[in-house]
């Protein structure tokens, strides 16, 4: 028996009938608008989860899509983005906006002819005035700009301020003070450094770079990177010996076996709980410090990584680079998005909302309101260092890839007694020479260049 339609069903039908044309009109206009726009693609890394990638989409991609009349960016979450990008580029594919993990990687892809030159766009959009010269220099190959360095980072000495105050310890400014304080901390039954590499063996390079720049000095590292000085010189022997001594003394997490098997979370927890006193790490660690110290009720502080002279030196690192795929169908559209991505406003949003490190563009202080004040201090200090030209050189940014791999892997052989410091540095020199011959060394900005 057929049921008669009740008033509610009739109302539902009426609403549906009325809504369909409205949806068709609005959907149609949206579709038409989207069709009018050039679509470009970009991949966002989601290896460690999608949260940061989604935040970056909300902070940079969505606002761009909303304001651009001509370009639509299609973001895609891509685990292991770099490996996927390499494979895709080798096949003549890949996203239009290409990210690499840093200048050393970007140099290789540039040499393979997979990126488009950006000089015309730099002229058009005023990038030469917007970016610090040293940063744009890093993106050049034979004087032509191919890569925009993104996410400028630095490393510092972070410490448990509450623990320091309780014990009457002062943050060190020289390498000698650092060594003396480490001995004192170890004698008190506390781990001097909450260092670990279980999840990321490449963390070795943070300490190698810091000791090279802060014991031997950034001028010597610059001289070696530009081929004016061998890596086997006594300054570098002293630097690597100091690092080896710290590890052999058990200052890194209590011993080399613990260093290899401790996670970052456990190391941070030990630092916040006062079981460890300090750590040398990048500015990216601030969010974790706030989480762990917030739970423990202690306070953390930071100082520049001590140096032989006592001068504050900030080693600069580039977290990623951005380029245009040589196979991009509409390079002008990609350049329009890259320009938007590197405006001070977008960079400030990425810093404030997603905890990103900013590119080397001038950021308005007001735009950074709300970020952790100590993080703001680090950003200011690193920008001043980059502007003054007195910065140091992180391994992942300024060293060629194979030399970097040798440095990271052989330092463990040195720590285990399988190599001497001299053998370690000789291997660095041999590998570096080969990569110089192969043209694999990233462009090292002239040290006299300032921002």
């Amino acid at each position, binding site marked *: 028996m057929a049921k008669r339609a009740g008033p509610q069903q009739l109302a539902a039908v009426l609403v549906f009938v009325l809504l369909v044309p409205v949806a068709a009109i609005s959907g149609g206009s949206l579709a038409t608008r989207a069709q009018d726009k050039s679509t470009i693609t970009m991949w966002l890394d989601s290896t460690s989860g999608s949260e940061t990638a989604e935040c970056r989409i909300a902070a940079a991609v969505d606002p761009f899509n909303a304001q651009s009349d001509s370009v639509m960016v299609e973001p895609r979450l891509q685990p292991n983005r770099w490996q996927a990008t390499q494979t895709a580029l080798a096949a003549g594919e890949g996203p239009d906006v290409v990210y690499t993990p840093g200048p050393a990687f970007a140099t290789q892809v540039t040499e393979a002819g997979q990126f488009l030159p950006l000089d015309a766009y730099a002229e058009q959009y005023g990038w030469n005035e917007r970016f610090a010269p040293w940063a744009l220099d890093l993106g050049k190959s034979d004087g032509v700009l191919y890569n925009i360095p993104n996410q400028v980072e630095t490393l510092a000495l972070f410490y448990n301020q509450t623990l320091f105050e309780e014990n009457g310890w002062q943050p060190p400014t020289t390498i000698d003070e650092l060594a003396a304080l480490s001995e004192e901390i170890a004698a008190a039954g506390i781990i001097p450094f909450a260092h670990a590499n279980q999840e990321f063996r490449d963390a070795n390079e943070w300490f190698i770079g810091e000791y090279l720049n802060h014991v031997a000095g950034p001028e010597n590292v610059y001289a070696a990177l530009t081929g004016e000085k061998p890596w086997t010189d006594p300054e570098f022997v002293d630097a690597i010996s100091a690092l080896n001594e710290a590890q052999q003394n058990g200052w890194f997490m209590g011993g080399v076996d613990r260093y290899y098997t401790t996670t970052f979370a456990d190391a941070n927890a030990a630092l916040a709980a006062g079981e460890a006193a300090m750590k040398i790490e990048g500015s990216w660690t601030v969010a974790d410090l706030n989480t762990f110290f917030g739970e423990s009720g202690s306070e953390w502080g930071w100082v520049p990584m001590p140096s032989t002279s006592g001068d504050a030196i900030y080693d600069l690192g580039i977290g990623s680079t951005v380029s245009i795929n040589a196979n991009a169908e509409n390079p002008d559209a990609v350049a329009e998005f890259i320009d938007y991505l590197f405006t001070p406003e977008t960079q400030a949003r990425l810093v404030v909302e997603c905890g990103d490190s900013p590119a080397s563009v001038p950021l308005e202080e007001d735009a950074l309101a709300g970020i952790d004040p100590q993080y703001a201090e680090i950003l200011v200090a690193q920008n001043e260092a980059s502007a003054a030209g007195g910065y140091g050189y992180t391994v992942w940014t300024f060293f060629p890839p194979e030399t970097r791999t040798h440095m990271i892997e052989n330092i*463990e052989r040195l720590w285990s007694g399988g190599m001497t410091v001299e053998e370690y540095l000789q291997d660095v020199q041999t590998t570096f020479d080969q990569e110089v011959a192969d043209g694999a060394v990233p462009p090292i900005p002239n040290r006299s260049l300032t921002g």
Partner: protein
Amino acid sequence: MRDTAVQTHPSLALHRPRWSRARLRRHAVPWLFVLPILLINLLVVLGPAVAAVYYSMTDWSGIGAADFVGLANYQELFFEDPSFLSAFVHNVVWLAMFLTVPIAMGLIAASLLAPIRRGALFFRLALFIPYVLPSVVVAHLWSSLIHPDRGVVGWLNERGVPGTDIALLGRESTVLPTIAFIDNWRWWGFLMVLFLAGMQNIPPDLFEAARLDGANRWQEFRDVTLPGIRPVLVFMILMTSIWSFLTFDFIWIITQGGPAGASEVLSILVFKNAFQNFEAGYAAAIGITMSLFVGVVISIFVVLRRRGWEI
């Protein structure tokens, strides 16, 4: 006479069964069925394999053009790169561990479980479950469990149990056997299920006859069970040998080859050279060498089989 025998009358030639339709169908149709998979195979297996051989003789960075360098990559591999020899030795150690421990455990457990009727499913499931867990989960689980500052070992260490203060994954002397233990924890249950299935296909009469002849449990196992499951056993030994040269996941997740290269195997070298060092040509040479090692293992089995070994 011979000539006349082979000559054919012209009229007969005309009526020769002209590759009769039935014969044609018998010969050609199976090929037509196989053709699609053959073409796919050529495209996705043989093509890349040939390309890999070519790239192994170039200086390809993994992106862009490649220059031919002849056998330079192989020369570096065999005569100049100490990490290759070290990784190869680790693969051989890995092979030795996986050809003995899990196979012995699987055989023992299967022969103990085979006669059990009550609760058999429970035991089989309990031992098989680790195999269905993702390797990343197993790796993190065990890394925590055996850490001297946390997990079960950490708990024992806190109570002063001797020998529990060692970070097994942080020492060069213990890291490889420890990862092999973790991988084996997941793997041996799978072997056990295969062996158990093989044992259940052995006719019960054979066991009965052996018992009537006065065979004890060991003699029963040696003379009835082992020959009865020989095809499964040999196949799994062959596959274990092949997989041991290709192992990657557990080592990469747990140590990425460290510390100090103590757990570095050939597949880790391939990955690092291809994706970190931009030495894809060199990585291809390592890959080809790994394939040759696997080829040697397969050849040994083929030769033994041709010599009459029932494997």
